[in-house]
């Protein structure tokens, strides 16, 4: 079970917001050097304020824009344990699954949540809770293969463990 403090964001948070292209291209191959710039224009000092296990709760179209996979990777590196949003941009969604960052679609939780609330994401039983507000929302189960990838911690870990991606014969 995932449990952490909520960071509440709005609609249309882009991968440029998460990590600006100019840092990606000035430090083109080093994730660590980009850490200070994660979400910096949205939440100044985010990389220092965020704690391991925290959950981002956002509105529509989270992760829109550039395909840069550094965006979900950096969120995971700084400690974000899941992103709950009303909808996701499809590339961000695939990237997040691939690197083992749970991405959860929920409609009401983003409406009721505020920064600082305690959020729980229970992928096994398919529930997201705002513990602070005493509110719970059921979420659609992931397709079997995606659930298996998230459980293993990402597609690379899955392949290392089972020899191939789940859809190409790797069974876990």
């Amino acid at each position, binding site marked *: 079970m995932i449990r952490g403090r909520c960071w509440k964001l709005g609609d249309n948070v882009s991968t440029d917001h998460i990590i600006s292209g100019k840092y990606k291209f000035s430090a083109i191959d080093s994730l660590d050097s980009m850490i200070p710039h994660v979400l910096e224009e949205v939440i100044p000092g985010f990389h220092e304020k965020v704690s391991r296990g925290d959950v981002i709760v956002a509105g529509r179209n989270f992760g829109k824009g550039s*395909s840069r996979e550094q965006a979900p990777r950096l969120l995971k590196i700084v400690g974000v344990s899941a992103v709950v949003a009303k909808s996701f941009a499809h590339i961000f969604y695939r990237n997040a699954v691939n690197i083992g960052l749970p991405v959860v679609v929920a409609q009401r939780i983003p409406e009721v949540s505020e920064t600082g609330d305690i959020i729980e994401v229970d992928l096994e039983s398919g529930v997201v809770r705002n513990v602070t507000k005493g509110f719970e929302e059921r979420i659609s189960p992931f397709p079997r293969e995606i659930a298996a990838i998230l459980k293993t911690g990402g597609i690379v870990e899955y392949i290392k463990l089972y020899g191939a991606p789940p859809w190409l014969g790797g069974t876990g």
Partner: protein
Amino acid sequence: MGFIDRLVSRVVGRDVSPGDIVVVDIDAVYAQDGTAPLVIEVIEKELGAGELLAASRTYFFIDHSAPAPHVAAATVHREMRRFCRKWGVHLYDVGSGICHQVVVDEGIARPGMVVMGADSHTPTIGALGLYALGVGSTDAAIAIAYGRQWVRVPPTVKVVLTGRPPAGVMSKDIALSLVGELKTDGMVGRAVEFHGEALKCISMDSRFTLTNMCTEMGAESAVIPVDEVARQWLESSGLTPFRRVDYNPSETQFADELTFEVGRVEPAVAAPPDVDNVLAVGEVEGTEVDQVFIGSCTNGRLEDIEVAARILRGRRVHESVRCIVAPASKKVYLEALRRGYLQALSEAGCVVAPPTCGPCVGAHMGLLAEGEVALATTNRNFPGRMGHKDSKLYLASPATAAATAVEGKIADPRKYLQG
């Protein structure tokens, strides 16, 4: 069932429906110097792959920071070259051009293919009647290593373009007007398929702008089934379909359908801070700009350079503006050179840059300082996209960009294109 479901059904040998998750052979995979470094890392370090089943249909492009503006980029480029030599992956090096244009120029992307590109504007090439999916680096790495990937068949929205674009209105204006209406999340989880009589007078160059901008509505993919315009273009380019797909749109049930009258479209501008903040050019006319950029995978094709040259020929770029023009590929560059467009632009005071994504992604070749304002033919105007976080970026067509370069402030191009 839209074109993409029919194509995927053909590929997997059974009927699929929107929402189905299926595994498909990927006919071509590509990545660029923003996404390739992670592809390399995943393949060589994380997966430790022993062979790459799709190496011969994998293409790397050095286009985002090309030529290398700093040592970090140079190092990445060196790694990409080493990787391509080692694994037999095709490399398009510095100066070749922007991936989405080069795959078209080189006949890598052909009708009926399933293509994955590690770049969000991969749907651009859907104008060739293929299924183009933008992905991230790990997805591309797995497609390269295994030759196959999973896709979720997207529900398709039919967009019918009616009427005829007025003089001075380009497909960028149609695309921006669509984004303004549908908003940046209007097509999340869906694919866009274009139809309608207006397509008869929209060239292939212009079509790639339409499909390109579907990314800015959140569309997973965009497609224009091959029609007479595309057939003629394919023939003149010496290209044949990769795979034939039996498809009859009139027998198709789409997830949604909307009609858009292009005869009423005006030159459009997306004002900061987002692509759906779309206004008629008249509403922002007179806004002073410091820089104009004409290029990118959205509007760096021959037709775009041609209209800029037509407007700027015999005129001068305004003294307070620097105007940068970057043809999207070497092929476009050479043809624009041969036709005298680049000379006209250079004589007018433009800086003609090599093919590169550079300014669009804030990588190099024309960044903005604090407080500066630019108008560009690119696809995103997010804060800080082209430089300092407190710079401002307006998006428009190449015609509007050229008129703006002449006047030093946002200008309506129609007065330069009468008769």
